C-alpha cells in the first residue's frame, strides 16, 4: 500500500524524499530504473551474477551522489551515465587483470548465464545477442547497447556518453559493420 503511493510520485519527488532519508522512496527509484541499468550493465558485461554486483554499485553510487543531482537533466540520464561509467571501469579492470594473469581471449572475460525461465528460442536469441555484443570492441559495444538495448537516439547517446554527435554517428556506422562480420561468423 505504501509502495503503491510511491509509484505515483515523480522522479523529482522521489529524489527529494530520498535526500530527506526516506529509504522507501529510494527503493522506488531502484524499482523504476533497475531494468534500464540491467540492460546497460548486462549488455556490456555479459549476463552473470557479477554484472548484478555492478548494477548494485550503480544504485549505491547514485544514493551517495543524489545531492549532486540538480535536476537539469532527466534522472534516467543521470543514472545511465553512472551505469556506463562504472561498467566501462569494470571492463578496463577486467582487461588489466586478464592481460596480467591470463592468456585467455577477450570473450572469456565475460560470462553467460541464461535464466531458467527462458524458452529454448529465447535462450538462443539471448545467447546470440550476448556473444555478438561481447565480440564488439568496448567503444562500439557501449554505442550498440545504448541503441539496440535502450532504444536511444544518437543525440541521447551522445549526451549520455559525453561525446560529440559526429563521433557517435561514425562509431555507430563502424559498429554496424563490425556487427555484420561478427554475426556472419556466429
Amino acid at each position, binding site marked *: 500500500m505504501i509502495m503503491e503511493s510511491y509509484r505515483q510520485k515523480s522522479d523529482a519527488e522521489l529524489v527529494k524524499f530520498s535526500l530527506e532519508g526516506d*529509504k522507501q522512496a*529510494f*527503493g522506488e527509484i*531502484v*524499482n523504476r530504473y*533497475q*531494468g534500464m*541499468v*540491467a*540492460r546497460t*550493465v*548486462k*549488455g556490456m558485461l555479459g*549476463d552473470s*551474477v557479477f554484472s*548484478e554486483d555492478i*548494477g*548494485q554499485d550503480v*544504485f*549505491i553510487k547514485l*544514493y551517495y551522489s543524489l545531492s549532486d543531482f540538480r535536476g537539469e537533466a532527466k534522472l534516467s540520464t543521470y543514472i545511465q551515465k553512472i551505469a556506463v561509467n562504472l561498467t566501462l571501469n569494470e571492463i578496463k579492470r577486467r582487461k588489466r587483470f586478464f592481460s596480467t594473469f591470463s592468456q585467455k581471449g577477450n570473450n572469456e572475460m565475460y560470462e553467460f548465464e541464461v535464466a531458467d525461465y*527462458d*524458452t529454448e*528460442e*529465447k*535462450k*538462443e*536469441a*539471448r545467447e*546470440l*545477442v550476448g556473444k*555478438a555484443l561481447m565480440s564488439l570492441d568496448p567503444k562500439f559495444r557501449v554505442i*550498440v547497447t545504448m*541503441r*539496440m*538495448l*535502450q*532504444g*536511444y*537516439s*544518437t543525440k541521447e547517446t551522445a549526451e549520455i556518453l559525453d561525446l560529440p554527435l559526429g563521433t557517435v*554517428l561514425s562509431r*555507430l*556506422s563502424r*559498429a*554496424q559493420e563490425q*556487427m*555484420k562480420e561478427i*554475426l556472419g561468423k*556466429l
Partner: protein
Amino acid sequence: MRISELKLLIIRSLDIDGDPEKGLRGLEEAGVDYRFSDGFRDKVLGRIASAGNTVVREMESVRNLNNVFSRIALTGVAAIVILLISIFMVQGSLSLDSFLGLGNSYDESLVYLLTGN
C-alpha cells in the same frame, strides 16, 4: 523468431536513419531482455544500510582518535614545559649548551669524556 531474422533485426536496429525504439521492441519480442534477479531492490537497500553503519563506525573511530590525540598532545606540551623549567633551574639558562647538557662543562672535561684521555 528464426536466428537469421534475429541477425537481420540486430543489424537493422543499428541503422543511423532507423527508428531505435522499433529495433528495441523487436528484440524484446524475440526474448532479448535483461533483468536483475528477484530481491535486487532489497539487496541495494541492504548494502546502503550496512554502508551507513560502516560510515558511522568510521566517524566514531576518527572521533576517538582525535580524543586520544588531544590528550597525548596536552601531556606532551606539559612534559616539554616541565623539561624547560628543570633545565633552567639546573643550568641557569635556556641556551643550546644547556639543552645539550653542556652548560656547566669545561672543554677539557669534554675531551676527557669523549676520548677517555
